[in-house]
């Protein structure tokens, strides 16, 4: 029998008083109770009694608990929750498009930069690791100390190879010796039919070369590619250069116009991160074809130290023993050499070659890296990432307070604390992921740019860089969690009524200070980068403009070594001098502006043999280079003895030999039995080596023209001069092409790694300033918005626009000053380290710091003012009417 309406209402009322909240479930329970009661009433029990029995049976004290349980089981649906959070996020982002864009753009820029730098780091760290045995390959290096100067070189005697194999047969696997064709200081030619070119990257190596360095072969068999003397292995690039689309295998290349070499293999183009760089490998057994050695007997001797010796070691623990063994070999075989040069030999791991080598004379197979520059790159990359992460955290934190109302309402409607926390954290993680996606879109555009800038080939190989990508991914999530954590844990724990009333104030207390700290850190980093950029650019400028003591412009250096020009040098020179476009011609043994070799000399007043850097020149060197004679005279045709026993020294040499009156002092090459030489002139110090080096003593003496011809050209007549040189070249050397460079350009090239650093610094400081400004703008616009009411009241009470501008920007100016005080000393310490690389460097000037402060200050003030002016100009009626 159905219950009456009043009876049902009674049940409803009673259940409410027992603590059940209304809703869907409540109606369901009412129905259930009613059914139970109806059952009992049907059995003849009175309504009241029946109801009480039912209630006793099902004990409503648990009901609120039950309601919770049902709510949770209904809501426990991750997909729905995520969908809701995503929806809220998109609405929020759409509502605050401006801030969302800043957030995403800033972070993705930072991530992209960091990834580029990280890829570069991977590239540098991956140096020489592509060989199967790379971890067990070592090489011998040597140092010699003469007259207090120690020189390190990576090349040693060829006989070491077979000797260590003989003495340490158990521990040493293969060895291979390499000699760079450059040792002859010539540039060889290769020819196939009509195609004849000079080639820079030519090496000779033992036939075991490809056992150690297993470069992948495209054609040919690596096992016996260097098996017979007249073989050559070339790279794919060379195959295309000489043979076009034909296959090179089995074809013949004419080497130096005198030897025929058969191509026995083509290897894939070498990766940019190996220091074993070559285009051609010729067996050492054919070294005679290089024209310097007659046969291969010297390979068993200790006469010249031009060989790289690489070998594999089975047990790395044996390396110190082998190193000691090599020094023992040297003592056994060359006791005098060991003593005279204080020579020491070392074993260097292949993995250390690129980043942990500092060899003199630029003697390694390829330009070694500089770990200091690498550290600078990495730190700059990290700084940019930090700036963008700070931006993100800062903006997320700041804008979260805009959502107090949303949070309050959510809480009133029954959202649990952890729901809100999850919502905030998930939100910022998702935004971070969006930024990461953007970063991956930008990356392919940035990579070619940086590849050419850093002179390496960078590519995003997902499989090879899995750990890097994983790291970036985790980092992005971490930034998301960190920036979401503040609103998640701080705001979500507020009492809803406080949040809704807006009791919380912005800009006051720990939170505002923390944000300022973050902004301050950003500005400090930017100041560091600005000052760094300025100093590096100034130093490069200084290098470019510094008077080197000679006139590097208008000089063409013609390489004559290895051609038939030296044989008819004087005719060549006279023909050139008859041209109106050519001022003067001289021969010289060094390309000038790079490192120079030593020789030993006997010096008047010094008992011991002196090791002094030398230049071999012919007449007119002083005139051609534009040097200044301070005492004595230049080599002269009137004095026949000049060419046999005359020496010109620089002021540094006079100082080093403690000569007050250098002219006429006895000086001679230590090897000569009869000492006749004397000084005929002193030139003013000039930078014959890179500016990283101080000016050393140098002896200039007369030597037959063999290496370079320096041609001074009339200003503005370079083209004519070049045409004349070309014409005369053809006359004296019909076979080989002309090879020349402009001296100023080749000097510039010496500083390419510095220039690279400068460019990277520049790009990153622009990026970091851009990111920081973006973040600052976002933050200021938010704060101005928050203080609109305050500004309105101030205006009503008579404040002027300028006083309000001052009010808003004051603290930012202070922040810039504080950041500057923090950044300036650190900048000084770090950038000065870099400057110490140069013997000739700019002096620190307060102007650099001042411009750093001014630039950052101006940018900050403009950024703040842009927003503040708008706020200050706003009509109080608009801003106040809402309240």
């Amino acid at each position, binding site marked *: 029998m159905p*219950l*009456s309406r009043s009876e049902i209402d009674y049940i409803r009322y009673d259940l409410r008083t027992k603590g059940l909240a209304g809703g869907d479930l409540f109606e*369901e329970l009412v*129905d259930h109770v009613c*059914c139970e009661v109806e059952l009992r009433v049907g059995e003849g029990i009175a309504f009241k009694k029946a109801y009480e029995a039912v209630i006793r049976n099902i004990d409503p004290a648990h*009901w609120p*608990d039950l309601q919770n*349980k049902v709510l949770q089981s209904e809501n426990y649906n991750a997909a729905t929750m995520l969908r809701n959070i995503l929806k809220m996020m998109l609405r929020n982002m759409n509502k605050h498009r401006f801030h969302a864009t800043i957030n995403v753009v800033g972070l993705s820029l930072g991530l992209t930069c960091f990834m580029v730098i990280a890829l570069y780091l991977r590239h540098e760290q991956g140096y020489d690791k592509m060989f199967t045995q790379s971890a067990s390959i070592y090489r011998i290096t040597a140092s010699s100390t003469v007259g207090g100067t120690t020189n390190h070189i990576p090349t040693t005697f060829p006989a070491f190879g077979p000797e260590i194999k003989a003495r340490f047969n158990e521990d040493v696997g293969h060895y291979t010796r390499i000699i760079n064709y450059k040792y002859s200081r010539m540039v060889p030619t290769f020819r196939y039919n009509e195609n004849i070119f000079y080639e820079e990257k030519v090496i000779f190596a033992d036939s075991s070369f490809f056992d150690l360095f297993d470069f992948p072969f495209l054609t040919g068999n690596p096992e016996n590619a260097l098996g017979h003397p007249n073989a050559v292995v070339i790279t794919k690039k060379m195959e295309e250069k000489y043979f076009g689309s034909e296959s090179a295998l089995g074809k013949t290349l004419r080497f130096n116009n005198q030897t025929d070499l058969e191509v026995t293999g083509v290897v894939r183009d070498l990766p940019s991160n190996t220091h074993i760089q070559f285009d051609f490998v010729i067996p050492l057994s054919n070294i005679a074809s290089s024209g310097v050695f007659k046969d291969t007997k010297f390979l068993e001797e200790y006469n010249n130290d031009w060989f790289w010796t690489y070998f594999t070691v089975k047990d790395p623990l044996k390396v110190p023993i082998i190193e000691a063994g090599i020094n023992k070999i040297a003592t056994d075989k060359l006791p005098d050499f060991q003593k005279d040069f204080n020579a020491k030999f070392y074993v260097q791991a292949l993995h250390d070659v690129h980043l942990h080598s500092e060899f003199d004379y630029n003697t390694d197979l390829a330009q070694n890296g500089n770990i200091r520059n690498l550290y600078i790159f990495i730190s700059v990359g990290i700084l940019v990432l930090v700036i963008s992460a700070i931006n993100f955290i800062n903006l997320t934190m700041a804008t979260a307070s805009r959502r107090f109302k949303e949070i309050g309402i959510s809480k009133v409607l029954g959202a649990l604390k952890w729901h809100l926390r999850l919502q905030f954290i998930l939100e910022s993680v998702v935004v971070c992921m969006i930024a990461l996606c953007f970063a991956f879109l930008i990356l392919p555009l940035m990579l070619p740019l940086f590849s050419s800038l850093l002179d390496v080939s960078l590519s995003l190989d997902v499989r090879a860089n899995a750990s890097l990508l994983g790291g970036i991914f985790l980092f992005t999530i971490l930034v998301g969690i960190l920036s979401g954590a503040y609103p998640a844990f701080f705001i979500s724990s507020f009492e809803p009524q406080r949040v809704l009333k807006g009791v919380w104030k912005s800009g006051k207390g720990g939170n505002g200070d923390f944000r300022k700290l973050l902004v301050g850190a950003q500005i400090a980093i930017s100041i560091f980068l600005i000052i760094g950029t300025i100093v590096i650019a100034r130093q490069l400028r200084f290098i470019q403009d510094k008077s080197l003591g000679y006139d590097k412009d208008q000089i063409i250096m013609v390489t004559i070594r290895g051609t038939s020009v030296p044989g008819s040098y004087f005719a060549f020179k006279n023909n050139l001098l008859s041209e109106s476009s050519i001022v003067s011609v001289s021969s010289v043994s060094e390309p000038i502006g790079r490192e120079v070799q030593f020789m030993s000399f006997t010096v008047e007043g010094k008992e011991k043999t002196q090791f002094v850097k030398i230049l071999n020149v012919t007449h007119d060197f002083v005139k051609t280079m534009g040097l200044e004679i301070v005492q004595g005279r230049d080599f002269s045709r009137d004095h026949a003895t000049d060419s046999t026993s005359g020496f010109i020294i620089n002021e540094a040499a006079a100082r080093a030999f403690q000569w007050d009156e250098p002219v006429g002092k006895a000086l001679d090459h230590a090897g000569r039995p009869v000492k006749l030489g004397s000084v005929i002139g002193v030139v003013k110090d000039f930078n014959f080596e890179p500016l990283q080096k101080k000016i050393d003593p140098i002896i200039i003496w007369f030597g037959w023209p063999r290496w370079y011809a320096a041609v001074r050209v009339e200003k503005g007549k370079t083209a004519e001069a070049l045409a004349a040189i070309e014409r005369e070249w053809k006359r004296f050397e019909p076979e080989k092409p002309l090879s020349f460079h402009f001296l100023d350009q080749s000097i510039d090239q010496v500083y390419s790694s510095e220039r690279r650093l400068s460019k990277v610094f520049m790009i990153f400081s622009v990026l970091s300033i851009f990111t920081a400004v973006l973040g600052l703008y976002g933050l200021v616009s938010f704060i101005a918005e928050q203080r609109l009411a305050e500004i309105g009241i101030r205006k009503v009470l008579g404040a002027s626009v300028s006083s309000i501008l001052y009010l808003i920007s004051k603290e930012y100016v202070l922040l810039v000053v504080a950041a500057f005080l923090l950044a300036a000393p650190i900048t000084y310490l770090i950038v000065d380290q870099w400057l110490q690389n140069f013997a000739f460097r700019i002096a620190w000037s307060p102007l650099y710091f001042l411009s750093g402060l001014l630039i950052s200050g101006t940018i900050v003030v403009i950024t703040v003012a842009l927003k503040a002016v708008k706020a200050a100009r706003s009509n109080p009626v608009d801003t106040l009417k809402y309240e």
Partner: protein
Amino acid sequence: MTSKELIKGTLRVIVLKLLSEHKQMYGYEITQLVKERTDSEIELTFGALYPTLHKLEAEGLLVTKTVVVDNRARKYYSLTSAGNKTATGEVQSYFDFVKAMNLVLKY
């Protein structure tokens, strides 16, 4: 009376099975039917039944229809097509389980 723990584990199957026999049922009806069939051996409590029903609904296995009966709202549950499939599957796996349990316990 059967222990609460055992009912907890099998409630899902019970609800699904009963709903698969009937076009639609409401909460009280389910408790009554179970009581009747088991001769009062199993009595479903509120605390177990309603969360299960709501959970199955959230999973998309049940749909509800609210009808006003005798001056009060009554919520009927019925299986969706996905629910039907699940019901067959879960009943089958319950029997498999019982068979396995028998093998273990009667050894």
